[in-house]
């Protein structure tokens, strides 16, 4: 017995328990890893028959709930660096707007879909492999009883060489605010092109490039991602009319609960274990997208703007 929920913008019905379940699972990833989970949720929504454009836009809407819930939970635990978050967010908003403009141009050239997927494969492959190798090294060091982290000294030296050095008390790092600004700009640009919050790129870069402690990375990224996704959602609503509020709300209820469960679970897991798990998920998604590009599709035609 299923209870179908009609999604008027997607023009499709989906079992409400399935939507709530997806929300809880992906929301718990948000709470654990500090990512919005768009790179996981959007492909899953497409798999259950939601048109890709509606899936991506409605997902950014529901991420607001997960990110609000998760960042609130992390804030209560003192795991949000507001000072760093604001610099990241400023760069992210500018980058995101530029990214949306770039993707509009690419769509005119007719290669946007392929370029988006190819960018995904390259970025997820690089980030996932680096995180996997680094987290395994850290786990081995921890097992051997050695202190310290596997951050790149080159990155840290770069941050310290830039002008207007500033001390970020909460994170305990001294660096130029230009670094989080540029980082936000770069990730926002990619996120705008790929239509996601970009947390899966932002989280590793905040840890490795900004040198922030992992527990602060999670809370701070959720904080800035809530605002970023609000911006993306509003633009999608006004310009493209592709946000399905019914879908977003059903997912949001699930992800809001999941984010709370995840943030509690994250306290029980060590940083290097979190990074290892996230690296495995990132690489699995990368392989899935790569196979989608290589294997013969079920249909050689697709409805424009739908498939």
């Amino acid at each position, binding site marked *: 017995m299923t209870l179908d929920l009609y999604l008027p913008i997607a023009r*499709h019905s989906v079992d409400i328990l399935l939507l709530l379940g997806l929300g809880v699972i992906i929301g718990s990833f948000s709470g654990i890893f500090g990512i919005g989970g768009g790179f996981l949720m959007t492909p899953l929504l497409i798999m259950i028959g939601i048109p890709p454009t509606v899936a991506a836009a409605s997902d950014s809407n529901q991420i607001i709930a997960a990110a609000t819930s998760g960042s609130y939970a992390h804030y209560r635990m003192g795991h949000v660096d507001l000072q760093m978050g604001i610099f990241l967010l400023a760069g992210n908003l500018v980058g995101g707007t530029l990214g949306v403009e770039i993707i509009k141009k690419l769509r005119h050239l007719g290669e946007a879909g*392929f370029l988006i997927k190819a960018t995904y494969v390259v970025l997820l492959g690089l980030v996932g492999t680096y995180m996997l190798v680094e987290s395994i090294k850290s786990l081995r060091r921890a097992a051997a009883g050695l202190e310290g982290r596997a951050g790149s000294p080159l990155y840290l030296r770069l941050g310290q060489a830039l002008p207007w050095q500033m001390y970020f008390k909460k994170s305990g790092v001294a660096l130029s605010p230009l670094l989080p600004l540029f980082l936000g700009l770069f990730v926002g640009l990619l996120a705008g092109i790929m239509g996601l919050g970009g947390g899966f790129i932002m989280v590793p870069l905040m840890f490795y490039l900004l040198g922030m402690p992992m527990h602060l990375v999670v809370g701070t990224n959720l904080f800035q991602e809530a605002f970023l996704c609000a911006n993306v959602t509003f633009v999608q609503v006004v310009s493209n*009319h592709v946000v399905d509020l019914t879908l977003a*709300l059903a997912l949001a209820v699930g992800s809001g609960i999941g984010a709370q469960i995840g943030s509690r679970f994250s306290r029980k897991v060590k940083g290097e274990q979190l990074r290892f798990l996230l690296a495995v998920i990132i690489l699995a998604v990368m392989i899935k997208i790569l196979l989608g590009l290589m294997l013969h599709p079920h*249909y050689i*035609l697709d409805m424009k703007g739908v498939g």
Partner: protein
Amino acid sequence: MQRGRGSGRGGLLVLAALVLLGIFAVPARAAHIQVTPATLKIHGFFGGTRLQVSGEIPAGCAAVIEVMGQGGEQELMRKGRRWDLWMNVGEIDIKGVPGFYLVASSAPRLLSVSQTEKPWGYGLWRRRARFQGAVKPGEEALIFKEFLQLKEGRGLYGRFPGAVEVAAAEGGRAQARVSLPINTRIAPGTYRVCVTAVRGWEVVQRSQVPWRVEMVGTPGFLTFLALKRPVLYGILALGLAAVVGFLSGVLFKRK
């Protein structure tokens, strides 16, 4: 010379008129078509439905029942292999075909794929389809076949040979009846339901009625907001998501 050509044309016209009269000869009593639900109302928990269609036809005839959307342009993307990877390689527009089409018959032979010249079925749309865009000469049949597969996969096209039941009715008439699946992807709008009576391969009666699909209640209201009041819809979307997130945080805090 002129007169000769004219009389030739006249003869052809008379012949064409006779053929058309033979095909579309409608008896004095037109088919009475009943469609249930008379109007399909898409509500918040709509999960698809079955459309019951019945129509009177002359006794001894076979029947073809069709449900079709408005003919228009179908915009498609074509995938192709480049550098060993699958990607979109161009756009294809197919004109003259409906976005939604279901056809059922009492006799399976009436919907056989070889019957392309009949005024129903996929063959009708194959004849009417006009292709534009990334279609090479000679590829039309392949593209149309792929188009049908895509539409059938989405539940927007369907062929049901032998699904129509014909039973005797009063006054030397018969009643043709079918139950057709309506997918949740059906778009709101006006559709046509046609009942065709066939004797041998000859059409003896063809009648049609309009059929409406409407979005009502919450889906109707949200669609109106999304399309006509996007700013309000955007504020609602952001506000509700933030409230849901915040409330779940507060609820868990209490526990």
